[in-house]
């Protein structure tokens, strides 16, 4: 496991490489123009958020959740009514075959 959450973001400089990396992770193709637009937008956003760093939070527990709820659990029961039929499940698919969703081949090794 790696922990990227502790990266120092105080400098707030975002490189084009980082933008390309994020776009790759999200599998969203972006143009050169968008790269620069997004880079500036990210920088701006992070700079705004960075103002929070002036606040002393050394005595504050991290907040994982804002609802204040805990232990919202369900019993282990099959809910037949909520289940889709195969036809319903596949209804929005671009391409199907014999009850399956079809996507371009993704395997890296064959």
């Amino acid at each position, binding site marked *: 496991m790696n922990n990227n959450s502790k990266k120092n973001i105080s400098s707030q400089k975002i490189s084009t490489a980082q933008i390309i990396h994020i776009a790759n992770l999200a599998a969203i193709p972006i143009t050169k123009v968008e790269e620069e637009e997004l880079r500036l937008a990210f920088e701006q956003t992070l700079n705004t958020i960075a103002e929070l760093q002036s606040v002393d939070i050394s005595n504050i527990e991290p907040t994982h959740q804002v609802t204040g709820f805990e232990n919202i659990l369900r019993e282990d029961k099959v809910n037949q009514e909520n289940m889709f039929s195969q036809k319903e499940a596949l209804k929005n698919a671009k391409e199907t075959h014999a009850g399956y969703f*079809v996507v371009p081949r993704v395997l890296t090794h064959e």
Partner: protein
Amino acid sequence: MKTIKTNKNEYQLICGIEIHAELKTDSKMFCGCKNDPFGAKEPNIYTCPVCLGMPGGLPTANKKAIEWTIKVGLALKCKINLFSKFDRKNYFYPDLPKAYQISQYDIPFCFDGVLETSYGPVKITRIHLEEDTGKLLHKVINGKKVSLIDFNRSGVPLIEIVTEPEIYSPEQAKEYGKKIRQILRYLEVADCDMDQGGMRLEANISLAKIDQENLPNYKVEVKNINSFKFAEQAISFEMIRQAKILDNDEIPVQETRGWDSNKSMTFSQRSKEDAEDYRYFPDPDLPPIRFSRENVDFIEQSLPELPANIASRWFEEYKVEERYSAQLITDIQSANLIEESFNLLINDSLTPNQLASAIVNKKIDISRENKASNIITTFKSLFQLDDVSQDEILKKINIVLSQNSDAVKKFQTGETKVLGFFIGQTARLIGKKVDANLLSTLIIQELNK
């Protein structure tokens, strides 16, 4: 400890194992869809907006899956995090419709456990609960290479059990895996069907020089191993492969490899230069979970006596050898039934250990429909000898010897292992149950004439 010696160096295996197992709850982890991916007659028949990742789907965690995870943790002597939560592990793959997997990052339900093996203890780092992905099938359809997706498995509760890099031989890795499967089955929380992918192994393998104090500065991950034998073979293969690389003063590439069981070798799948970047964060849809000490104690009290305990108790009380108990203790009902049968042999000339051996080797029925008294009857009948005269036995021996003059020659030139063949042939010819020791003595006597 197992080391590998080359002309240049001696290396020690350093190995950690990750095991994924699907829990056999009735419903899925975060929705009420049926959890039966292997029993489903058709693809995509157990889905809903939550496990198809549709916008607006709201997950709710399955209480039983959480309790079972803690049960497994307690059985593996883990500490339990009384406060825990689910996190999103973000990555993009077609079998993951939300583009994130709900998992646990920094606060798993269980941590710091241990499992004893005959090669030494294996420390369990953590056990966390997550959801399985859909299943991909790679096909060519209308000349096009495509992947087919079945989401029946999407959202099935999946536990991941991670060890410290403290497994020191391929044999220990195999035993560890088998013991984990035995416990999961014994607790009745997972079927661990490895052929179907209900249980999957990953091994993180590296080598350290025998006098090296630090852990190696690399590791190779071998994924998707679907049998314990393959795990053992894959680790042995990697030891040889990595030793060669290290001998050349190079460092094995940090990468993910697969196991090709046909070629009996590992192969590179993808290199990890592109370090995984999952951007974990707490799932805002799932409020955190808090247990009281009493909740955990209650689960602990519900634990049955565990296989390892039963095995050592059977050894103490009945002198039953571990090699049999390891195979006999598969589920609570049959373990109880077998023990009941042992008790029927108190003051008998036949021993529980002989019964244990007979159940393993002669496949006496120990399914829950059978009764202890029936088991004993079947068992004793194996030892009942028919009344056959020595003359008749000698007659049959001589027939067998005259029909197998080649084997007789072999015996006379010192190949004594053909004796077993003669015993088997003669017993078959007699067609009745005779004392194998007597047969053996008489055959040797005839052969030496």
